[in-house]
């Protein structure tokens, strides 16, 4: 049963899969994400015992049960807060948060935003199926206006929120997007893991039961080249079946151009992961949709700063002496 690196140097996908039957609906996008995660973790050099998955409540949030790592299926919306405490208590473990669009953005929006601004060293995966799956299909904060659901029989009138814009607005320093069946998802997971601080990855996910095809315009293989803009640091933002299209920045607005027709190749914007203004615009781009790392600008992680401050307190005052504490300040003796 031992999995320490001394006794075993490499792990396989199977080492990360628990013995529990996976209970998502047939065809759920969560299966593909689970497979990507289980495939990626062995490559990170972190043993299952050094890995923790924390989740809230929802279909997505069942994730930890399927991982043969430490896992905590907490309560609705609170996973980032639980994970923050865990990371403060136990800095050595690698902590992943798995959450849904309802869990993270509706009830849990506040914890998400504070975790991002504090920059706690967590990898946060938001499975966005634009619906409340587990409670049988009510609209979520990412559902579109007009969406008919059991709670909006005449269509939703709530403006949806953009998870990535919200993350950037909150001060997130690693903001990325992928989708359930994407081959490039493992790559993104690796980047998220490598980033120290809060890494936020929105994963577009299909819920075939309650919101089938919510993302098919974007993820459909046939349209993928047209509808997906994959960002690469330092590379021009190009897409299209023949990479003939590009993104141009004008007046602080992004424009889609056809190279050679509307614009020169040199006018195509080169992706700078540290440009937050462009990242904010990319996050709002609708057609194509931007994938990959939109923004990455590392800063010290909160938990590390806390530990450093605790250590500096010890350095200054020595390891706390309880007797001395009780006797600090004015005392007197009765004989």
């Amino acid at each position, binding site marked *: 049963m031992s999995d320490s690196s001394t006794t075993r140097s490499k792990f396989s996908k199977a080492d990360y899969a628990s013995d529990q039957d996976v209970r998502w609906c047939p065809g759920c996008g969560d299966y593909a994400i689970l497979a990507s995660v289980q495939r990626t973790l062995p490559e990170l050099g972190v043993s299952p015992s050094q890995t923790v998955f924390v989740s809230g*409540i929802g279909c997505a949030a069942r994730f930890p049960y399927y991982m043969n790592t430490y896992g905590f*299926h907490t309560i609705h919306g609170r996973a980032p*807060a639980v994970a923050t405490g865990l990371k403060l208590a136990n800095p050595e473990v690698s902590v992943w948060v798995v959450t849904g669009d309802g869990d993270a953005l509706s009830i849990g929006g506040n*914890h998400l935003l504070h975790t991002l601004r504090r920059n706690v060293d967590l990898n946060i995966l938001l499975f966005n199926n634009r619906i409340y799956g587990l409670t049988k299909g009510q609209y979520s904060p990412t559902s579109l206006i007009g969406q008919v659901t059991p709670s909006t029989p005449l269509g939703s009138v709530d403006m949806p929120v953009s998870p990535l814009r919200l993350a950037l607005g909150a001060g997130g320093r690693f903001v990325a997007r992928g989708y359930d069946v994407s081959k490039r998802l493992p790559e993104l997971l690796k980047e998220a893991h490598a980033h120290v601080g809060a890494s936020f990855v929105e994963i577009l996910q299909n819920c075939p039961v309650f919101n089938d095809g919510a993302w098919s315009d974007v993820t459909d293989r046939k349209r993928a080249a047209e509808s997906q803009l994959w960002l690469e640091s330092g590379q021009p933002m190009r897409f299209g079946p023949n990479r003939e299209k590009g993104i141009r920045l004008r007046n602080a607005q992004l424009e889609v151009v056809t190279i050679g027709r509307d614009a020169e190749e040199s006018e195509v914007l080169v992706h700078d992961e540290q440009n937050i203004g462009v990242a904010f615009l990319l996050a709002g781009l609708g057609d194509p949709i931007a994938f990959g790392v939109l923004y990455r600008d590392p800063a010290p992680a909160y938990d590390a700063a806390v530990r450093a401050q605790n250590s500096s*307190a010890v350095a200054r005052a020595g390891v706390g002496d*309880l007797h001395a504490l009780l006797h600090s300040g004015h005392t007197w003796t009765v004989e």
Partner: protein
Amino acid sequence: MEPAATQKDRRAREILDAVVIRFAGDSGDGMQLTGNQFTQSTALMGNDLATFPDFPAEIRAPAGTTYGVSGFQVHFAAHDVRTPGDTPDALVAMNPAALKVHLPDLRQGGLLLLNVGAFTTTNLNKAGYETDPLEDPQLDAYRVLRIDINKLTAAAVKDFGLSAKQAARCKNMWTLGLVFWLYDRNCETTFEFLSQKFRSQPVIAEANIAAVKAGHAFGETAEMPSGIGAYQVPPADLPPGTYRNIQGNDATAWGIVAGARLAGLPVVYGSYPITPASSLLHALAKLKHFDVTTFQAEDEIAACCAAIGASFGGALGVTATSGPGLALKGEALGLAIATELPLVVIDVQRGGPSTGLPTKTEQSDLMMAIWGRNGDAPMPVLAARTPSDCFDVAIEAVRIATRYMTPVMLLTDGYLANGSEPWKLPEVDQLEPFPVRFREDPEGYHPFLRDEKTLARPWVRPGTDGMAHRIGGLEKHHDSGNISYDPSNHLKMSQIRAERVARIANDLPLQKIEVGEEEGTLLVVSWGSTYGAVRQAVRVLAGEGCSIGHTHLRYLNPLPQGLGELLGRFERVIVPEKNQGQLVHHLRAQFSIELESYARPTGAPFRIVELETVFRSRLEPS
């Protein structure tokens, strides 16, 4: 220690057994500081004492208004002291508003020290006086000392080159000097304190010291009106040991640190500021070198969840709040109960419902502490009785949480949190350790295996090799820990959760009589911070030969063994509480016995005489 008063003075001093002084002034007048300095000196002089600060809900309401008045009461004696005192023997009123608010409390014939320099027309108006209270014949009922402290302070510090505003700020120290003289206190601790506090502004320090000295000198030299003398309160006969003065929230914070040491755990303290719990966060934030991490969360839910996450991570998760915050933590506490993680939850109670009376004290969260979660979700509940007792109860909470793998609720209140008393310091190395042993052996492990005796499940630190496991808030099978919706399993798990808490009673001391008779006519049952007043009232009556006894509950859930038997030994039982009768409700449900409630949620602590009167009336044949 050499008292500051001269030989000449001491000859004239009247010896008093006990004194209650209240300092009152504008929020900006520094009354809390003055009170604390008086307390510090008094403690060092060997008196027993208790204090009670009373500040406005507004941070610093406009100067001169009645709702901006801040008070600090100290009760010190040559014998042991249990409460900050019912009615002041002396009132210091720094301005008209302070007089207006506090005069009704001063005992007839009490000493009234008035800063007449502040009795300007503006201030009289702000306080809502239509006629000059200094002219009011009502004052004849007191021994009044009228001094223009403003002017005398200005004179005392004039050589330091302070601005008028800076100079005026010294007037509390001038007053303190005079009060020091009146009660024969030593000024040295205050001199030290001032030098320390203003170490970067030595001129300010010196001016303040000069003010104290001037006030003191004024007492020594000025002619006092008739009826006002100099007093002395000899030291109390306290058990030998080293003492310090301690406020409840500091004691709780230190108790958590001590408990974690005894368990061998680091602390992760998650909290969101709220009156009167915030100073716990402040105290712990200063103790980072004690392996304490403090996390000021975005709200109470996150604070509680982070503490739960920390406990899952192998630290001692602690969270503290007051009533409104506890009302938010209910769902998260259910998670801690369902996942059987240790956690200490502190509720520093204040007046409710809703925002209620944020700076006032109350005991009205008891039922919420016991019941305020969805489902059958039992957790142990403890309560502290005095400021220093917070230390012991906090350690006990850590012990129970880690031994039984359960969240534990610790109730204190605003009165304990801000009140202070001398504390005979325990010998740290004689505290009984209760080291936590994390499970590391994968053999036969599953997360809901139980210790036969305590029913506690094993605690595993994530990162431990080969012990990966998942826990969560869904019901789990008692025998595998896997999710289970099976009816008989749920019944069994519900019963186990109840039984695990119930068994804690086996581990607790038998309930005893605190003071008074072991059986007889009237038993008084109390809990929490009413301890001092109840005990004192019962002691007085028992001293008079009344058939009365007092028992006090530290453990509210589970109730201690022996309590039922004890209740049966008296003809009548009365339960005084600072709420609408919550403990009495809880006890009635447990024991088929008639219990009388004396329910007084007023935001203010009980007075001893009030309780004496109530108990006495229940002792008379009716």
